């Protein structure tokens, strides 16, 4: 079933705030083999001018899970995740994510297009900290293969 193109511009309610833990950042950094001490050692991060450990650049993808789930769970959108391939991903950083950040993510569907039986879904997730200040914005393009 194709995606409903009228969903372009649809914004889902904000996800519950995500408290970024030092150990979650450590776990993620270890999983990608990133060895920079600023990812795991608060003192090393402070020496570089950060308030706490720094998250690796792609860490914010972890925070997009509730937004993705909201799209999957939305029967009106018609997203069949078993047919999904990740097309592209983009991050724009106002500042790095730090340990101790309380981040609220809001996901908006920006574009729904269809070409030769394949659907393309671009969503944007805006991430703000507890002051409401912007931290990271990320865009995901999902390719949904047809029958």
């Amino acid at each position, binding site marked *: 079933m194709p995606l409903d193109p009228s969903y372009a511009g649809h914004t889902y309610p904000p996800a519950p705030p995500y408290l970024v833990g030092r150990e979650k950042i450590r776990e993620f950094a270890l999983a990608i083999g990133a060895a920079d001490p600023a*990812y795991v050692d608060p003192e090393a991060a402070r020496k570089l001018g950060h308030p706490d450990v720094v998250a690796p650049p792609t860490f914010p993808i972890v925070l997009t899970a509730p937004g993705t789930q909201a799209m999957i769970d939305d029967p009106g959108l018609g997203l069949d995740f078993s047919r999904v391939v990740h097309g592209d991903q983009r991050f724009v950083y106002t500042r790095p994510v730090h340990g101790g950040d309380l981040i609220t993510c809001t996901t908006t569907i920006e574009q729904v297009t269809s070409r030769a039986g394949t659907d393309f879904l671009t969503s944007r997730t805006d991430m703000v900290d507890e002051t409401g200040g912007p931290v990271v914005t990320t865009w995901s393009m999902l390719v949904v293969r047809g029958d």
Partner: protein
Amino acid sequence: MQLPARTYRVTRADLVRYAGASGDFNPIHWSDRVATGVGLPGVIAHGMYTMALAARAVTEWTGDPAAIIEYRVRFARPVVVPDTDDGTEVTVSGVLRSTTDEGHRILDLTATCQGDKVLSQARATVRAAQT
């Protein structure tokens, strides 16, 4: 300016660990049965894992863990990871495309696996060195 190529080994164990750390438990990243059932040659790496490796290369080149201010990739081809001790390898190289008026450097990245490009239009913007 050419940035020196960096090669990263990728094994099934790495994918399992990344699944846990990222929360992406899609079985195409750990089950041959599911992966081949949807037409893939076998278990493939998370696209976001490959994207993370390319970012690692940028961070290692710059020496600044928070250097990247913008980063995008297109997932051109899957990274197939065989169930062997050695797995496979992803090689990341980069070239300086331009420098912005603010002194930010725009890097074009190339990531290959078994000779195939696995990322396309991969580009990172790295902030000017902090003084």
